[in-house]
């Protein structure tokens, strides 16, 4: 094995590329804020779409790195051996988590300062019967929001960050040892992961209610948490797969077998179905029961976001189903990368479709450069942070009890 290729250095081209993306993104974010004017007739505040785009970008990449942390913990908790060779790539994706959290926090604080109007319930006097902003339905729910909401938000952020940080730190600490006879760091991580799974199971649902579902404050869906979770999970899997293939193309990760990548392809296929299952279940139950306060959610989407709704459904469901069904496709690197990229954009559009109808509403004029520009900024930042994290540790883990199994992984 080529020992030089065990340590990753960020190619200058990649750095350049991420800076160009961030530059284009920043420029379009500024332009977006300048050009996004209000519309009194449609009850549309100025800059709402711009803020919603920033929110979508922050949330998508934060959720993605969180799901990567979950995926990492899952391998530990299940004591799965196959993914040991790609563990460093998963760890690198989780490195974006603090950035994502920081962006989310910034958006929440600005919302609380009434600089943007993403959250209806943050409006001043929403629970005050004498205020012109009074909303009876939200007033009944206000105990769940306000201070309690902030406490939860801070707890999620601290909890996720603490666990992720600890998992990665332990993994790096095992590298420093000459030999780890009791696999002490591994077992520490197994225990940690078990607790993280519990935390994640609860908070992935509650955080998506708090942060995403509360955009449509009047509306609720018990399936919503899982729907968001499956979306972030598939995005994380795509990001990890694309990174692995890219590293392989650069000559790194020679020790990752074709079967490991085949397995990532299976994950991509399976979680695309999980997403479809949850998306459709939520839609079908609401369509079937036909209760006005629930149906309104899909009515807005059906009336003003129809093209986006169908695009998201077909790109994220039919496309991976047909393209990833056969074994040969899942073992073809070019194919996986191509499909992964398209699904990745598809799930970003999914987040756009989740956010926009609740904020922009019927003032939506279709996808535009604003969405893509904002996406470019966050993608650039993500690439920059993740590739830098990759270069911080050797690509091959040391002192992991399942390393040998993973090196010989074949399906």
């Amino acid at each position, binding site marked *: 094995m080529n020992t030089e290729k065990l340590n990753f250095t960020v190619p200058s081209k990649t750095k350049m590329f991420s800076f160009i993306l961030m530059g284009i993104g920043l420029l379009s974010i500024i332009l977006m804020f300048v050009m996004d004017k209000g519309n009194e007739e449609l009850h549309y505040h100025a800059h709402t779409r711009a803020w919603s785009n920033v929110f979508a970008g922050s949330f998508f990449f934060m959720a993605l790195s969180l799901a990567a942390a979950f995926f990492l913990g899952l391998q530990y908790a299940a004591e799965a051996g196959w993914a040991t060779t790609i563990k460093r790539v998963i760890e690198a994706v989780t490195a974006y988590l603090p950035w994502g959290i920081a962006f989310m926090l910034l958006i929440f604080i600005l919302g609380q300062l009434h600089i943007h109007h993403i959250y209806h319930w943050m409006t001043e006097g929403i629970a005050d019967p004498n205020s012109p902003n009074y909303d009876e339905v939200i007033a009944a729910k206000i105990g769940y929001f306000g201070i309690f909401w902030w406490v939860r938000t801070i707890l999620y952020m601290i909890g996720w960050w603490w666990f992720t940080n600890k998992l990665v730190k332990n993994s790096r600490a095992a590298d420093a040892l000459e030999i780890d006879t009791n696999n002490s760091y591994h077992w520490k991580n197994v225990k940690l992961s078990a607790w993280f799974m519990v935390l994640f199971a609860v908070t992935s649902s509650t955080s998506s209610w708090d942060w995403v579902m509360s955009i449509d404050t009047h509306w609720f869906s018990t399936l919503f948490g899982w729907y968001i979770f499956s979306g972030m999970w598939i995005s994380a899997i795509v990001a990890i797969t694309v990174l692995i293939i890219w590293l392989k193309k650069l000559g790194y990760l020679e020790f990752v077998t074709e079967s490991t990548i085949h397995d990532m392809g299976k994950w991509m296929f399976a979680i695309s179905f999980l997403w479809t299952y949850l998306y*459709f279940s939520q*839609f*079908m139950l609401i*369509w*079937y*029961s*036909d209760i006005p306060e629930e149906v309104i959610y899909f009515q807005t989407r059906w009336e003003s976001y129809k093209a986006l709704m169908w695009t998201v459904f077909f790109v994220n469901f039919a496309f991976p189903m047909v393209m990833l*069904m*056969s*074994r040969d496709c899942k073992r073809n690197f070019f194919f996986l990368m191509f499909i992964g990229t398209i699904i990745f954009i598809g799930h970003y559009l999914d987040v756009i479709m989740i956010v926009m109808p609740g904020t922009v509403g019927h003032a939506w004029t279709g996808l535009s450069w604003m969405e893509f520009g904002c996406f470019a900024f966050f993608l650039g930042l993500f690439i920059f942070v993740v590739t830098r994290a990759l270069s911080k540790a050797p690509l091959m883990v040391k002192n992991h009890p399942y390393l040998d199994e993973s090196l010989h992984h*074949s*399906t």
Partner: protein
Amino acid sequence: MGSAVAKTKHIIHGVFNDEVPLLEACKKLRASGIRIKDVFSPMPIHGIDGVIGVPRTRIAICAFIYGITGTSLATLMMWYMMISDWPNDIGGKPNWAYYLNVPAFIPITFESTVFCAAHGMALTYFLRCWLVPGAKAKNPDPRTTDDKFLILLELTDEQAKKAEEILKSNGAEEVNHKGSYIVPAAYTLEEAH
């Protein structure tokens, strides 16, 4: 093309203690042009099909066909029951065209697809391996259900000698001769390489 003459085939069992030397022996046998009849093992060995020259399974194609059959059957059934024969008004849902009511039909379509694909695959597998009620076990040596690994060979005189050497030099615990049979001249042509 070889000439059509009757041949004697020897049945040889190469017994191993572990799958690693077995796989090595299989590779060597195949490299010297010997066809492996079958391998028996107490547990599944990943990737052995490629090593002993078993062609890729076509069960995935079967599964696809069974699945599509399930989809079509379910669609036909629901269209006939719910739209064509006796349109029911359920919760005020449109019932005069299939496509208008399609969200309600998706779960059944999905279940039927999975049902047909899974059962079709299982039945195909049982029939193809002839695992039918009352079928006799085809295991040549019962120890392979416990802790032994076995390569089954059916070879001509000169090949048998070569194979024996390869088996022994690659760590076979035993090389057992289990008799021989004669292949009539009419059948030998197609086997000639």
